[in-house]
Structure formats: C-alpha cells, structure tokens
C-alpha cells in the first residue's frame, strides 16, 4: 500500500490539480525527492537552499509535525498519511 500525501491548494497547479497524490518512499526526505520526480518544480517550493523544509511549510505525518519527529529522516511506511500545509496567518 502506498503513502498518500495531501497537497495544499497553492501547489496543485504543479500536481495537475490533484489534491492527493501517492508515493512509495522510505522517509520524508525520499518522499520529497519522489515528489519532484513526479511533479517537477515542487521540491524548491517546499525546501530551501540549505535543504531544510521551508519555515512556513508544515509537513505532518500521521497528524504530527515532522519537526517534532525526526524531520526529513522521519520514516514512512505503507498506509501512512502525510499532509503538506502552509502555515496559516491569523490572530
């Protein structure tokens, strides 16, 4: 079973308007690479020049922010649900 990733509206132009895509990756780092292969251009929207996930991009694995897991080394397994969510301004 592959891993499902939900794509936020601002990135759907790159995924042919698909709101969910599927990959088969071992960890978040691999997932970002696999996404780029399938949807060129998406990587640099999510990751900065230093290779870090951009500050205003949140990636959740099973509902937990990867910054509080193992960042890009956070392992993924079949059936995992990953969400990419831009930080929301408010207050």
């Amino acid at each position, binding site marked *: 079973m592959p891993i499902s990733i939900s794509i936020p509206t*601002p990135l759907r132009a790159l995924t042919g308007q698909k709101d969910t895509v599927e990959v088969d990756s071992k960890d978040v780092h691999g997932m970002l690479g696999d996404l780029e292969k399938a949807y060129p251009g998406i990587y640099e929207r999510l990751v900065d020049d230093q290779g870090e996930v951009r500050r*205003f991009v949140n990636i959740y694995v099973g509902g937990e922010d990867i910054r509080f897991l193992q960042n890009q080394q956070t392992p993924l397994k079949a059936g995992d649900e990953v969400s990419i969510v831009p930080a929301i*301004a*408010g207050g």
Partner: protein
Amino acid sequence: MGLLGCQTQSGAFPKGDASERMRGFAVRVLSRRDPLFLAGERTGHDQVRHREGARERAMAEKFFSQLKCRECGRTYPALATHVCEFDFGPLEADYNYSAIGAALNRKVIESRPGTMWRYRELLPIVGDPTVGQQVGFTPLVKADRLAKALGVKACYVKNDTVNHPTLSFKDRVVAVALSRARELGFKVVACASTGNLANSVAANAASAGMESWVLIPADLEQNKVLNSIVYGTNVVGIEGAYDAVNRLCSEIAGKYGWGFVNVNLRPYYAEGSKTFGYEIMEQLGWRIPRHTVVCMASGSLLTKIHKAYGEFTKLGLVEKDGFSIHGAQATGCNPITAARKGGTDLIRPVPHPKTIAKSLAIGTPADGYYAVKSMAKTGGWSEDATDEEIIAGVQLLAETEGIFAETAGGVTVACAKKLVATGKIPKDEEVVLCITGHGLKTVEALTGHLAAPSKIKPSLKEFDSLISSGLAKARVKV
C-alpha cells in the same frame, strides 16, 4: 521573469506579468473617488479639489505602494493577498522611508488630531482613512500604585480598554484593514476571531455601511458574542478551537471573495498594531520605554510594537536607545513562551488551549516565530500565568489604578509581576504594560472571585451595625 514574476496560482490577483499586474493596481487606485471629497473638505473650485486629491494620492503612493515577502523579499502588488506564492512567507507592507522621513516630524504629528491616524504615512492605505477615523490615542497612565505593588521604579499602563469604538486594541487593526478593503473595492468583510476582533469588525463595518460576517469559536464569552450581534453582523459559531475557525476562514476567503481582515487583508490589518507602539513613544515624551510587556495570542502585536520602535528610531523621531520587549501568555496556551524559555524558535502547537484568557487562546500562533525573535533580539523574556494568577492580575490592576481589564490584561499584569520578581525587569527600571481590552467583555471569568455586595434595609441603624461588624470589608465570594 523578474522578481515580481512568480506565477499566480491562487487567483488572488490578475494573472500576467508583473507590469500588467502593477498596471491593474494603478487603475484600481485611480478609479477611486476623490479622498478629499470623501473627507468632506472644501478647497474651493472642483477642479482644484480634483488636482489636490490626485496630488494627495500620489504622495500616499510614494510612502506605500507594494507588499513584500518577509522571508525572500519578493514584491507583490498591494492587493488582497497575504502569503508569498513561492515560499509561503508572510507578506508585509513595504514603505519608502526616505519619503516618509521627509514628510514626517514630531511637530507635524503633534499638530494632528488625537487619533491613530496622526501616523498616517506609516500605515498601508493610499487615500484618506474612511473607516475608524476616531480610533486610538488612548491614555498612557502613569501607574504609581501599580509600580509599588509590582516592586518596580516606574510603571505605565497603555490603556486600550477605552479604545473607540469597541474597547480593545483591535479597533486599530480593523480601522486600517477596512479602510484598505474599501480602497480595494470589497463590499463584504469578515474575520476569524476569538471575540475582540469580531466586535470591532462588526462595529466598524456597521458604521461604514459594509456587510460583515464574523466567525468565532462556539464557546466564547456571552458578552463578546452579544457585542458582535448588536451591530447587525452575521455571527457564525464554529464548533472547534480558534485554529479550526481560522483554517475554515482561509477556505471561505478563497471561495467567496470576501475581505477577511486577518486572512487576505492581513498585511494591512497587522500594520494597525504599530500605532500602539507609536503612541507609547510619543506619550512618554518621544522616547522608547526601557521595558514593554505585551500579551501574546498570535504574537503579532509584540512584533509590531518592536517594528514601531525601530521605525521611529530610523526616522529620527526618537533617540536610539536600548529596550526590551517581553511576552506574556496564559499557562493553558503558552506555545510562544515555551519556545522562548526553551531557547528555540520552533513553535510547538498547543492542540487544546485551556485558559480563561480566551482572547489569547491561539494554539498555532502565526507570528510566534517572529515574536520569539523580537524578544531574543531585544533581550526580552517571556512568562505565562495560570487562571488564578490572571484573576489576581485583573484585580490588582483594578484596585491599584482603577482600570478594569479583560483576562488578557490580567495575563500581562501577572507576567510583569513575575518578570520583576525574577529580575528580568530590574527593580530600578521602568516598564510599560500593554493592556488591550476591557474587563466588561469577560465578566464570567470573575464569577466566584469577587466580594458580594452587603445587603441591608434602608435604616441608619442597620448601616451602623454593618460598619461596626466589619462585614463590609469581608470578601465574600459570589
């Protein structure tokens, strides 16, 4: 493509290259009604008036004309958009400070009416303000009795409990957001709110004749709900915490094309908070206070007070001076304080905030990262207060200074007390407390904590025995 040329995916503004988009913006601005006419001024002949209006607009555009990503610096036309399309960083108003410096000095500011618009060149609108013209310039109270209670040399209270028209600092941000919303042609305005913002949007939209919608958590204080409904706004209670309300609002803003003051109008809205800081400096006699304590929900007010201090310094309106800005949160929702104390700028969201300071109950603070940076950069610290400490803080401010603040004000007072006790604010220095909303908005929080009134028959004898029994002073809780 140049710096401005990143592709539009959101449809928030016209597609095309940067110059086309900028032209679209110019057309919008020039098609507005003459701002001088709107302000009701009479300069004589119509033609003169028209020329004056055009000149004023040109001046205003010279001060502010675009938005800029706070992270990567890409620029965007000044439309209803708030996030950089490239890296999702927040967009901010971008000013021409040399033009502002040439137009603004202490004398000019002092000659203007006592409202937040006396700093108009530093606010992101193009014409004259058309909403909330009377907002701001609230008292800065020298709080000697509170200073003594806190054990600090000098204390001032910036008292936005009496801000016009809805008794909280949110009238400042809404005045800017709705004035800009009108300039951009919005007919319907809306907000996600923990209460105070909803009150302010509802009232200011009503006075401007605009339709408004406010979305709030369903469990808000009754007075805050009533204080929105009375203005004829559309109130929608959402079953969920503020963060869920906020997420829904982002989706609604995209679908319905409304002006959400704290979503797609956020770059304009947020700048209104700077006036809180400008006023503190001017009212202190044109200087920056050594310490400032600010309560934090999203963290936006703290970062904007920091920006205000920096802008006045840059413009030479105040001397360059050392200052520290400290943050205050409720213990039941303290993601920014936890980050500051933990020495990190990573904000760990609080999924289920639990505090009587509901106006501060934002578990995923949008400006938390920048608030931590502001505190660290200025040598400021951050504290949090329990529900009991918050109530004690509300009472202390009321009993020493005669100012009744909402629970968020109790948070500020309680945290200031801790900052003095731990030496983060040295006893021989001064502090300004930012008190942002009126206590009548959150009376439920005090239930069971105040003395009940004594009840007697209309007889002098009964009154005498009341005095002699000392009952009047007993703190019976109601």
